[in-house]
Structures are given as C-alpha cells and as structure tokens.
C-alpha cells in the first residue's frame, strides 16, 4: 500500500530514529520559514538585504559622517571605511536579534499544532534559526564581496560562519527561554524588543571598543561592554573579515563557552517546560 515502511534497524544507521525525525522536522520548519519570507516576490532575497544595508547606511551617516567616527584600518591599510567596520559587526548582531525575536513567533506558530500531535517542539525554533542563518549568509556574502573588491580578504574569512553559528546558538539558548516565558506572559515579546535595542548599543558595533571610557556616571562602562557575551563573538567576526587576523583564542573560547552553555541550559529549560504549555487550555 501507501508507505514503504522498512524496519529502521535494517537500514545502515547513522542517526537514531529520534534524531532523524528531529532533523526532518527542523528541515520542514526551516523551509516553511524561508518560503514565508520569499514566497511573495522573486526579488525576495534582495528585499531581505535592503534592511541590513539601510541600517549600515543610516548608522554610517550618523556616526561616520556626522559624528566623524573613525574605524581602525583594515588589514591592507587602505580602507578606513566606517561602514564596513559597522557591517562586519552588524552581520553577527542580526543573526542574534532575529533569532531571539523569532523564537517567540516560531513557538506561537506551532503551539496549536502541538496540542494535537506530539513532536519535539524545539525543532520549530531550531528550524527558524536555521532559516535565519541561511538568510544571514547572504548578508555575509555581500560583506565578503565588498571586502574582495577592496582587496581585503584572506583565509581567515572561514571564521565568519563560525561567529555566526556561535551567535545563533547563543540566541537560541535565550530564545528557548523567551519562548517559554512568552507563552505564559504575552508582554515578554515587547520587553525583549526593548532589551534588544538596549543590547545593540552595549556591544561595540557602532563604536570601537577602545573609545569606551572606563567609568561614566559611576558605572564601569568599559567592563560592562567587555563582559558582554556577544562582544567576543563580534570580535571573532571582525578579526575574520576586517582585520584578517586569526581570531584570538581567548575570544573564540569565550564565545564558544557562552554559546554552547546558553544553548544547553535554554534547551533543557525548554524541554522541561514545553510539555506543560501544550496542556494549557
């Protein structure tokens, strides 16, 4: 009849059946998210670039032109383009903020479904994150192409996807928690927007870390910026595409520890709590 149902144990097995089911679901949700973004027009992919490019243009105008902020020179020393310094940090930030915000939406998107059929709900969030990474890779590609035009590329560019992946894991960890809490308290999504907009300026994206004063208004500002977990991820990305240096091992280790730790804790929390949410009337 309909399905050719073979015994899973008879097949050459690389993944456990549960892991394979999980992987298929992640793929389905990622496809759904990607289609939702680009279904409406052929130029969808270009439209998706418009937002980050506009952000780069606006911030470059305000900080680079009006405030005359200067960026450190690139590896080949010829381009001191504030916009590119900004862009290299922004790529990572966009991965982070899109996933944190999206997590709550992806959770809502499947919560009715989950009441009718069992599936590991976290796959919806992981799928959304995968779609975000795919979309952001286009931004990253544009950045690298611009750098190539300026003859500022090196093998270190392989660390850019690493930084993006770490940002995604870190964001997913927070997103798991936010999705659970938002399922109960609906204003968490608004709160998240506010926290994220503050967070954006707590990371050296529109400024260089060295101009941050040690203390201001009695607060250890430099220390706060330095301790921000995203700081090291952005440093890795900048080393990769802007300074063309092998990222600092300490930065990489810090970023990886934060990313993996947050992801693991967030996932554990999500798994503990998501069953209860599907039982709510």
């Amino acid at each position, binding site marked *: *009849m*309909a*399905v*050719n*149902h073979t015994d*899973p144990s008879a097949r050459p097995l690389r993944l456990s*059946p549960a892991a*394979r*089911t999980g992987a*298929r*679901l992640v*793929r*389905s949700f990622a*496809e*759904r998210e990607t289609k*939702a973004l680009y279904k409406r027009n052929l130029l969808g992919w270009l439209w998706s670039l418009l937002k980050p490019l506009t952000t780069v243009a606006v911030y470059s105008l305000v900080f680079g032109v009006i405030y005359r902020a200067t960026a450190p020179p690139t590896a080949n020393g010829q381009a001191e383009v504030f916009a590119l310094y900004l862009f290299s940090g922004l790529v990572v930030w966009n991965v982070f903020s899109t996933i944190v915000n999206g997590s709550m939406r992806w959770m809502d*998107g*499947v919560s009715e*479904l*989950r*009441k*009718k*059929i*069992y*599936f590991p709900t976290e796959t919806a969030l992981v799928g959304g994150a995968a779609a975000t990474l795919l979309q952001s890779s286009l931004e990253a590609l544009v950045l690298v192409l611009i750098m190539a035009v300026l003859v500022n590329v090196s093998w270190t560019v392989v660390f850019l996807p690493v930084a993006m992946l770490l940002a995604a894991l870190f964001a997913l960890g927070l997103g798991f928690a936010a999705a659970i809490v938002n399922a*109960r*308290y*609906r*204003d*968490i999504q608004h*709160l998240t927007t506010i926290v994220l907009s503050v967070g954006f300026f707590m990371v050296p994206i529109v400024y260089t870390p060295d101009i941050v004063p040690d203390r201001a208004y009695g607060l250890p500002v430099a220390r706060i910026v330095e301790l921000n977990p995203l700081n090291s991820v952005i440093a890795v990305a900048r080393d990769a595409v802007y300074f063309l240096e092998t990222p600092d091992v300490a930065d990489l280790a810090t970023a990886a520890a934060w990313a993996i730790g947050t992801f693991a804790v967030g996932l554990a929390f999500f798994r503990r709590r998501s*069953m*209860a949410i*599907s*039982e709510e*009337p």
Partner: protein
Amino acid sequence: MNEPARAPVQAVEVSDVSKRFRLELNRPTSVKEAVLSFGRRDVRHLWALRDVSLTIEKGSFFGLVGHNGSGKSTLLRLMAGIHRPTSGRITARGRVSALLELGSGFHPELTGRENVFLNGAMLGLSRRQMASAMNDIIEFSGVGDQIDAPVKIYSSGMYMRLGFSVAVNVEPEILLVDEVIAVGDEEFQQRCLQHMERLRSGGTTIVLVSHDTALVRDLCDHVGWLDGGHLRSVGDPDEVVDAYLVHATEPT
C-alpha cells in the same frame, strides 16, 4: 538476528495512569497582570483520569465510551504522547498515528502537501516515504488540486478528510481515532470504515472514541467505559455498552 520472533502482544499498556490538569482561573497573561495580581491566584486541579489500567492487544479494535468529560479524549492524548501522565505508565508500541478532533496536526499557513510532509516527519517517516504515499493520500482525501493551497482556506470537511487520509495512509501500527468520522458525509464515512477494517486486518491496532454506541458495538472487539476519569468496566462490547447505556439513561 538470533532473537526469537516474538511480537509484543500488547500494543498499548496503560498501568495505574492518572492525569491531573492544572486550571488557573483568571491566570495573568502578562508580566504586568502578574505583578498587579500578586498573591491572588485561583488555581484548581482537575483529575481527568484516575488510576486507569488497561491493555490493548495488538491488532484489536478497541472502543472507548463515556459521557462528555469522562476522560476518553485525555486517555487518547496520553496514548498519542501529546500529554504525559501525572502518575502511572503508558506504553504504546509501534508508530502511533492519531486523529484527534478536526484537522489534527495541520499548520494553517502551510499547503496541504507541505502539511502531509510535516505530518510524515512527525510520525518518523522520510520525505521519500511520504512522497510515495502522496498520490494515495490526495486521492483518498478527495481534495484534488487544493492540495497545493494553504490548509487555512480548506472547508472543514476537506480539512478533516485530508487529516484522516494522512493518518490512515502512513501505515500506522496504532491508529487513534477520536470521533472524527462523524464529520464527513455518508460516502466518506463508509470509506473510512472500510479503510479502518483493512488496516485492522493488516495488523493495525485501532482505538476509537465514539458516542455512536451502535458503531462501537459493530466494530470493536473490546470496549472500555470511562466515567468521571475512572474506568468503570472493560471487556465484551455488548456487555460494556449495555451497562453504559443503562447507566446513561438512569436518572442520577
């Protein structure tokens, strides 16, 4: 490969299962409300099932009867893994395909075809397996070209037919059906019943929740009667259904 070929006789085992739902009236839905209503919470617990034990033999057709709110649907959801029991154990051996309520398990924004793949993934089937079942699913459901339209525009009949079509065409080892057949027209109902018979003769275990006692008598090998979360009796369909009907018509 040296293992003796012994198929587990019990497809579903329910032992001492209780399920408690937490109901919170006027539950705060935002941080703001939670802060404002601090300390004033009205939490109630509802026992949907109490110490239910039963076994369902592999390949049998099991019926569940009882009044509304007696816990039938909760039991089915526990079997489907949608909820976890508060206490006790529930084991379902084999692939469980559940058809609970109208249009169970569809994502409204996705097309019918995408939903079929998504459902397949949830049931542990590969895209290839689902692709090979696709024609049967579309044909059985009768949704035709609408398969590529988002399911949110489907009529309730189409929704239900596609849901049923997926549930039965994935060769489930255990099929859970919750009162859904009643939605379709006469012709579709007949096809559903025929299909369930076919699955059962192929070794599928079927659990049916229904208020249609004539149907239950007709189809089921064993029937369980749930009353207020307790299993009142389980066994021969005629005996259990008779007892249930006597109870149902009795003034309480």
